């Protein structure tokens, strides 16, 4: 197992390097100039020497190879530098946003798991009954409905119903306060995006749970367990569900990593100051340094999540032996 863990960790290095090369080159193919955007796009003119000076300060006058080596050196030494747009340390810019994105991702994942596993299990066990049909409709709606659209509906519903019931239109807070500072305020802001994204997330996981469980329920060992006279609850929970969860864990892992940087539109709907919003802004602003670091961070999160998922596989299915 230890050898496997080390091997997997080492394999992350070429993945991260490949991503670094790719994002470095891609950012430089987008037409536009951060200096012009920063100094003149708000309306106004800027003289060439000011632009040249700005490019010099940002290191954009250096040859591409030099810029790339500086970038890689920064990654290796964990010196991520400053945002080219705000000229503030990238870690400072990411800090608060990371915390928020992580909380939303955890809350959405919990929402999804709490919905998906019971619903998927019931749906499989009660296959082709009205319960199964209901769950399938519920999940198809979840997959079909974009999270941001559901988010808009949630906000409008809250505004309209609060006005109708209490006479005052209430909407969720639009600025983030950490959980430990004011739990009620924090949850009253984040519960809604967690529900909006958790619903879609749970729909995918529910369908995966259902199909995996249906497959497992037809396995010989389940038939054997039933033939032994075990309680049905025990057969489902101990023998069938645990084995059916392998693909579900994969889906949950991928979705979790996606939530850390991919909630671009949903974040804007709820005014979440998260990583997705920062991502889009940094691309639009041509903030190469920030975009590169964010991409590398998301790649690292994906790689790490996959790594954790593989470890969970081993725990769920003792037949898997990675050391071979």
């Amino acid at each position, binding site marked *: 197992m230890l050898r496997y863990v080390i091997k997997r960790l080492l394999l992350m290095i070429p993945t991260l390097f490949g991503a670094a090369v790719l994002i470095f080159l891609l950012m430089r193919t987008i037409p536009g100039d951060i200096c012009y955007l920063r100094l003149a796009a*708000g309306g106004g003119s800027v003289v060439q020497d000011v632009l040249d000076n700005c490019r010099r300060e940002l290191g954009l006058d250096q040859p591409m190879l030099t810029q790339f080596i500086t970038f890689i050196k920064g990654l290796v030494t964990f010196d991520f530098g400053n945002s080219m747009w705000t000229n503030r340390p990238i870690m400072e810019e990411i800090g608060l*946003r990371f915390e928020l994105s992580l909380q939303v991702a955890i809350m959405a994942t919990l929402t999804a798991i709490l919905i998906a596993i019971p619903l998927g299990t019931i749906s499989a066990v009660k296959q082709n009954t009205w319960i199964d049909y209901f769950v399938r409709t519920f999940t198809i709606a979840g997959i079909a409905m974009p999270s941001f659209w559901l988010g808009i509906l949630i906000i409008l519903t809250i505004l309209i119903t609060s006005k109708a019931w209490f006479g005052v239109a209430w*909407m969720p807070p639009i600025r983030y306060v950490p959980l430990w500072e004011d739990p009620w305020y924090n949850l009253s802001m984040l519960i809604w995006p967690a529900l909006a994204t958790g619903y879609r997330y749970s729909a995918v996981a529910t369908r995966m749970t259902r199909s995996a469980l249906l497959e497992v329920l037809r396995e010989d060992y389940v038939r054997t367990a039933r033939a032994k006279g075990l309680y049905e609850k025990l057969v489902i929970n101990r023998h069938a569900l645990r084995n059916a969860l392998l693909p579900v864990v994969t889906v949950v892992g991928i979705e979790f990593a996606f939530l850390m940087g991919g909630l671009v539109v949903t974040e804007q*709907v709820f*005014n979440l100051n998260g990583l997705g919003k920062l991502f889009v802004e940094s691309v639009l602003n041509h903030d190469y340094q920030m975009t590169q670091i964010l991409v590398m961070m998301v790649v690292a999160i994906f790689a790490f999540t996959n790594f954790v998922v593989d470890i969970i596989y081993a725990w769920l299915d003792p037949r898997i032996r990675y050391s071979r």
Partner: protein
Amino acid sequence: MKWKTGILSLSLAAAFAVAGLAAPAAAQTPKKGGILKFVVPDEPPSFDGHRETTFALIHPIAPFYSVLIRPDPQDPADSSKFVCDICTEMPTPTDDGKTYTFKLLPGLKFHDGSDLTSKDVLATFDRIINPPEGISSARKAEFTMVESVTAPDPSTIVFKLKYPSGAFIPSLASPFHFIYSKAKLDQDPRWYEKNVMGSGPFMFDVREAGARITGKRYPNYHHKGQPYLDGFEAIFAKTQTLRVQAIRGDQAAIEFRGFPPKSRDDLVAALGKDITVQESDWNCVLIFTPNHERKPFNDVRVRRALSLAVDRWGGAPNLAKIAIVKTVGGIVFPGHPLAAKKEELTQLAGYGTDIEKSRAEARKLLKEAGVENLKFTLANRAVDQPYTIVGTWLIDQWKRAGIEVEQKAEATGPFYAQLRSGNFDVALEFNCKSVVNPLADVSKFLGSAGDQYGRFKDPALEEMHQKMNRTSDVAEQRRLMRAYEKRVLDEEAHNFISLWWYRIIPHRSYLKGWKISPSHYIGNQLDVVWIDK
């Protein structure tokens, strides 16, 4: 459907009635206390007002600073009325209009307790007019008339001009000209990019990256009794839908930039008397610019045809229902004494009231130029208000004159990359200014201007601009402005005005003392604003 329209009209009438009551409301005794929450569409790249050009800096940062002079916060709609902020009175120029002497208020203090003297004002304007190497000054070009700035004693600051200029006072009143501390600038000329320390009505409190900036009341503010608010919270909210909902759900009282008519109507319908709407012509305009270096737009006949095909008078009232544009105008902010009146406008190509006649002339010009079936691409910003809406309207106008146009809307970065490289046929761009200062604002139309993308040279136009800026005789300025305007829009057809923007600010009715101005850069120090809850 009719009853809905009826209700909406009634609600609108109610809201405007409330807006109409704004004047008596302002006469009420301001109440002290409260935190004003407002939404801002973007976060500023830095805190340095001298460097930046975006309203995203002004809205959250202006309340921390004083300026030398400013548009009257009690009457910001009057684009020619300026008052002192830290000076005692507006000076009368001496030396044939070439010397302006400002006396500073006594006992001015920065938020850190240090004295604010003329040395600080001098250091501030030195940095703006003659920035040291490595420092960007966005409005340096507006002060070409300034010969020297001196501080003969701690309470006096003197501006000496090379020639009398009507553009000087409006330029001086820019809301971006924050007064900085000389000590801080001496310590690090770039200190103000990342830090805030001024002498304005509010002291810097908190900045949360990408989320908010807050300020708290400065008790030693030089306008006694002000500010009325205990503090403010500027919340960054990128999407317009969210900003509208934030006001509806009372998470914010106002957004200072402006909403489209539909959002105003939605808020009025939802909140009734709890919302007040203020509206004004806006010192921003969408300009369509042909690339003179690209065929067939190197032919003045083709360029003129583009303007002749557009029915501004017919389009304005309809576009005003869906977009933040409304007023037909020339190159000068409508309503300003230097702006063209309707009878003067109608003499210009594309401003005639008989659109069929104009379009027939456009077709004739295109035929003469040998491009009867003209096709081109309109480069535009992928921003719906008002860019893509006006772009789509223009395409329809051109189609009616037999011109086929495709719109290519791109994000701001690639859009400007195209414009700067000259890789476009015709572009829809903007001219958005703060203090209404026509003599400076129209420099945008010069071939030599840094933000002129038409790629042409016109020495005669440059000469006209210089003459206009070197006379203090308003009648002469006006005459020269008409000639300048005719050359830009008609004779040489360098750039064309589509429609002037229209600023609509629906805000919570408990917000008092704030008055709309022709610019979203003005009126954001918040010292006269109060909350009546």
